């Protein structure tokens, strides 16, 4: 692409050199044709920074507020930066969230679900992309149907089903559907894999087949290694979405000892009231900074993950070619 651009530019560069300074400055600022000039670029930058600020405001607010003491909170002269970093909020939130326990549960559920979906959705996506069998189109239509069915429509039969299986208060309801390629946004992941496998040349399998490899060998030895970008994208998204999932874990896991972090966050106020016996002192139970600290603690693991794997999140959709 860059070579092409150079070729296009080069002939004009010579003639541009002799143009009057005025025109050249005008072109630089306002741009020519499809190329935007400095002025419009600056305006665009400003706009992006502005919108970005509004967009990030809640997070900045959260981080700023969680370091504020009660005095800072009331002081009208303090807007963004507290007088001193007040760590007690984080400490309180840490206790109230029952952090280590919740963290372990969240990691456990999210990893199991993500790995399950990454593998099972690859199987289905591969079948849909590389094979022809009767009823394939109908089945893929059903995959798309699972995408639009709201969880609240099927949650009650699922609840009864899991009760019958004796799965309530275990993680099985959150993991087994995932292992079969359903569950949270499973259809989306199947579609991602399907699109990815559709883009690979068919000669890949044929060569392996001639060497006598069976279908599963071809899949695990040749296709899966090639599908690394898609696997990574699906695993990351699935992990993060399961980390945040609230409705289904609340439905199926009522045992407090097995709550995920997100579930603990919604019970933060109650937990702290119990720990500190706040009502007795007539205190306004939990302060805003503690809640902000709690929210921060819940997202900090995935923020770190995002920090390191950011490119895979944002470029993944392009790389796997979902949009084509």
């Amino acid at each position, binding site marked *: 692409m860059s070579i092409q651009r150079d070729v296009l530019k080069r002939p004009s560069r010579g003639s541009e050199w002799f143009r009057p300074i005025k025109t050249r400055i005008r072109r630089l600022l306002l741009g020519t044709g499809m190329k935007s000039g400095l002025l419009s670029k600056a305006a665009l930058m400003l706009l992006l920074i502005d919108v970005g600020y509004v967009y990030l405001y*809640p997070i900045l607010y959260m981080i700023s507020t969680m370091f504020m003491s009660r005095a800072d909170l009331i002081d009208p002269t303090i807007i963004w930066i507290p007088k001193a970093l007040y760590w007690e909020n984080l400490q309180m939130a840490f206790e109230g969230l029952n952090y280590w326990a919740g963290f372990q549960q969240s990691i456990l559920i999210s990893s199991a679900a993500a790995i399950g979906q990454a593998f099972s959705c690859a199987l289905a996506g591969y079948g849909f992309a590389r094979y022809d069998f009767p009823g394939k189109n109908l089945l893929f239509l059903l*995959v798309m149907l699972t995408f639009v069915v709201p969880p609240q429509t*099927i949650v009650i*039969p699922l609840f009864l089903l899991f009760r019958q299986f004796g799965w309530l208060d275990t993680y099985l309801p959150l993991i087994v559907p995932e292992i079969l390629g359903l569950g949270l946004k499973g259809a989306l992941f199947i579609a991602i894999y399907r699109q990815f496998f559709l883009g690979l040349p068919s000669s890949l399998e044929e060569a392996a087949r001639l060497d006598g490899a069976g279908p599963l060998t071809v899949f695990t030895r040749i296709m899966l290694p090639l599908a690394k970008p898609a696997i990574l994208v699906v695993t990351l998204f699935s992990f993060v979405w399961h980390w945040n999932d609230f409705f289904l874990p609340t439905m199926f896991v009522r045992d407090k000892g097995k709550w995920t972090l997100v579930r603990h966050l*919604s019970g933060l106020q109650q937990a702290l009231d119990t720990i500190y016996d706040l009502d007795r002192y007539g205190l306004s139970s939990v302060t805003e900074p503690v809640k902000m600290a709690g929210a921060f603690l819940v*997202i900090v693991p995935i923020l770190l993950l995002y920090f390191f794997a950011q490119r895979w999140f944002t470029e993944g959709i392009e790389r796997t070619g979902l949009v084509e």
Partner: protein
Amino acid sequence: MRTRLTLGQKRSLEGFGFVLPWLIGFLVFMAYPLFYSLRMSLSEVQVTATSVNLTYVGLDNYRYAFLQDNVFPVDLSNFLIESLITVPLIVVFSLLVGLMINEEVPGRAFFRAIFFLPVIFSTSEVVMTLFTQGAGGASFVERFEVFQMLVRALPQRLADPINAVMGRFTLVLWNSGVQILVILAALKTIGRNVYEAAAIDGAGRWEVFWKIILPALRPFIVLNAVYTIVDLSLSPFNPILSSVSNHMFNVRTGMGYASAIGWIYFTIVLIALAVVYSLGMRRVNTM
């Protein structure tokens, strides 16, 4: 004894084998629950420790939802009006941000990372916490007197949902991360040569946007609208989630009624998707 299969049949079987685990999961965790909840919505449900008894009551649950329940219709109407605002808002916002980031501005990757960031926690309880602390509102819009006056002039039924959306404006925009990426990826599919041809024909940027970019993005805008509508199901601000879970264990209304609410919601989602699809795929007379 093995009967010999033709190569084609063998291939079909193999392909079916790959899809089979999903199909089993689909039957157990999707098809059966979907069918069963429809049956429950037409029944009075009694749950004991060991069994579930269904008594067919026809459309009673649905009738109750719209005629007798005085919470659900209000919740539903508020949610629908809010969605009529938020879905177009998210779709347009993601289109604009996608177009902006697609320009060759310094720090593109940085901005892309910023605008995608909320996707990693926008579905969760964290959003709810930020919201209850009032951190996600559109204070910049609310400051305009004109806007306040406009809202006040509207009937209560409309003003309430509008104010609700304004109260979490930024958090609504937070749902556009994936959609922005879709727009960015879609813009990449328009070849450089198309722009060059347009430039040679003397088209300005404005014309290029309306005549080339927008028509090319059309299917992806539809895709984004579909994604946004589906995504709303698990939004922490979706009142249907709590109505279902509240009625589920309510002795008076119970699981039959909760299932009916679930099906009413599902029907509405399907209608919304059909409308979006037919609007989006309608042929436009361009030239």
